[in-house]
């Protein structure tokens, strides 16, 4: 992350419980307003269900629940960020998403140990930008399938 190679990267900034998180614009397909979500039974609680995204049935997870933060009701500012991950389209629900910044990748730093909670496992690093601290999210870890598989295995054993 601290390589001397300096290239600009566009980051999409979203908010979750007052903190600012960032993902590369290359990973983002679109940002949607909250829409009807069909619940999927017997699956990990952070999977909110599926939506009809222009004809494609797309799984949606609540990033607050994924990071073990408390759940809040969805509001006008709630957004679903649609992400392309190895050929599959998935979505994350965030409190709000309203900024795009250009960041020099040489500014990326490894995650400091002060970041607490489960989210530390899903973080690639941080960027300090003036007075802002952007947390870079590792989407592949967020959408790790083994967690879902373990969950449904436990469920069917019951």
């Amino acid at each position, binding site marked *: 992350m601290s390589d001397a190679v300096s290239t600009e990267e566009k980051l999409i900034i979203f908010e979750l419980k007052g903190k600012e998180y960032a993902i590369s614009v290359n990973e983002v397909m679109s940002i949607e307003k909250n829409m009807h979500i069909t619940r*999927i039974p017997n699956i990990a609680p952070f999977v909110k269900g599926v939506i009809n995204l222009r004809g494609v*049935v797309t*799984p949606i997870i609540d990033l607050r629940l994924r990071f073990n933060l408390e759940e809040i009701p969805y509001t006008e500012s709630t957004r679903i960020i649609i992400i392309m991950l190895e050929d599959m389209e998935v979505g994350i629900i965030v409190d709000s998403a309203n900024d795009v910044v250009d960041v020099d990748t040489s500014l990326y730093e490894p995650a400091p140990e002060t970041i607490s909670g489960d989210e530390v496992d899903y973080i690639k690093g941080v960027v300090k930008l003036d007075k802002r601290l952007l947390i870079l999210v590792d989407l592949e870890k967020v959408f790790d399938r083994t967690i879902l598989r373990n969950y449904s295995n436990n469920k069917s054993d019951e």
Partner: protein
Amino acid sequence: MEMSQYLEVFIEESKEHLQACNEHLLELEKDPENLQIVNEIFRAAHTLKGMSATMGYEDLASLTHQMENVLDAIRNKKIVFSPEILDVIFLAVDDLDAMVESIASGGDGKRNVEEVVEKLVLIEKGLPLNQKNAAEAEVAATATEKAPTRENQYDQFETTVLQQSADQGFFTYEINVTLKSDCLLKAARVYMIFEALESLGEVVKSVPPVEELEEEKFEFDFMVTLISNEIANKIETAIMKVSEVEKVDVREFFANSQSVKQPEQSEIDNQVVESKQEDITNAPVSENVAPAVAKPAEKQTATKISNKTIRVNIERLDILMNLFEELVIDRGRLEQISSTLKDQELHETVERMSRVTGDLQNIILNMRMVPVETVFNRFPRMVRQLARDLNKKIDLQIVGAETELDRTVIDEIGDPLVHLIRNALDHGVETPEVRRANNKDEEGTVILRAYHSGNHVFIELEDDGAGINKEKVLSKAINKGIVTTEIAKTLTDSQIAELIFASGFSTADQISDISGRGVGLDVVKNTIESLGGSITIESEEGKGSLFSIQLPLTLSIISVMLVEIQAEKYAIPLSSIIETAIVNKKDVMLAHNQTVIDFRGKVVPLLFLKDIFDVPSTEGESDYYSVVIVRKGEKLAGLVVDGFIGQQEVVLKSLGTYLSSAYAISGATILGDGQVALIMDCNALIK
């Protein structure tokens, strides 16, 4: 050159050529004297070699090349064709198949083929593969040794080609090319010269052969025989344009004069080879070569006429299908709007649009239809091998291979069929001795049949083997606890036959290598049911069995029953529903802590979907249960829902890989209001 864009075409065509090789090899086995078939195989192999070399798959090209050498030797009667040779060629084709598969799945197409290549080289040299046929090979060996004396001569096949071309008004040239003595990249020059020549006509032969030229195994001159409709001058200039060429000598000649030489050639043959050999070398050649050459010409014109199709990537069709589905959903919405607005003009427009989209739907579905042939044509090879392994004689007949099925079904149906065929060969058809003792033809007949009927496709596998031994099946089923002795007495013949689909059941007394590797027919049944189809057996002891598979024409659109559970909507596939019922709560009974109902004299357990799916409760309960009776094989269950919405044709959508572990949900669909409804997997619900 950027090759990746041709990769798909290459893979498709390679598979076609390999399939052609397989088919023709099987024909050849039945009719080993027929050189025309050898020519067909040779041509397929040759094209494959060229393609793989162009694409840079060297291993593939070199193995094909080696196979081609053997084929060439066979058609030129340099070696005596034998079943052993055929086996080796089959092995080679298997290897090629595996290489192409590897390329198709993103690999580099490399594979250790030393053993096969070694065998092919041995065959080509006429050396014995093993002790058994050493004697035969000796003759062949002497035949090959004199091969070099043929240089500058044309074999009868080539002569016929030349003669026919001349008859059709083409010129035939012998071109002597001499490269400059300081030429550095001889192979590259040869390649360029050949490229130049191939743009002018067809190269029939070269001395030394192309392979040696490519490996620079020549001094500075070589000779090429070319069929062309260009004049000699033009050819000469074309070659001279290639740098480092010293001299070109283009000489027109006539194949007729050449064929005069043939008797001499035969004489040389006769001196070396036994007279017995002579019969095979001369007689069949003269009979067979002519049609062999005539055929390609026919074929070319045939392809030109029928070449009105294009290859479309299945992904593109999927995209088209997706877009179309959206259109169907919007159509649903428009229909809703028009019925509430009650505007005459809007209503008519929407109606017309519905008709057009209906037609469009048919066309798109038809585009995805593929003849079942693509699955069937791998079976002759398999049956041949199995029959050999089992020491049985099998005549496999394929009927209705042109019957069309949706691509998605085609992809899934192969494995169950392999299993059924193995089963029929292993357990069904008896050994020749047993068949003889039972006054049957030594050779067992297995018929693989496909046909359309209504909205379904039927695939049947029929054999005239031993049939299903009912007592044996029953005693085994009782032993394994699949049925009780009491129930066993009440079963009908067909119910007994169905028992072999029960999991953990195998009719074989011993686990053999062919079938019964712990995987039973229950897997076959499950696969077919997961495709929305069903399988039945008819069997008569001593006469044979008939396995009949019924499949829907397409998987992408299925009929479902939409139900409501509280505020949520779910779809239950119609294929697993027996009927719906309204049950009074007073009629519900408890048996072993399980709520059950009496449904037409049967005790059926009730499954409360609200609890199974943890549906958030929003409204109170009534005195009645709405129940959907579903089945999984013989087992029934009643699914308790809150209301029926109705039957509907829906477009099946995958939940995607991320949610593949979702319990009892097999997919999703998009309803008219744009919302997603989940499709229930009844097989997972019934344990």
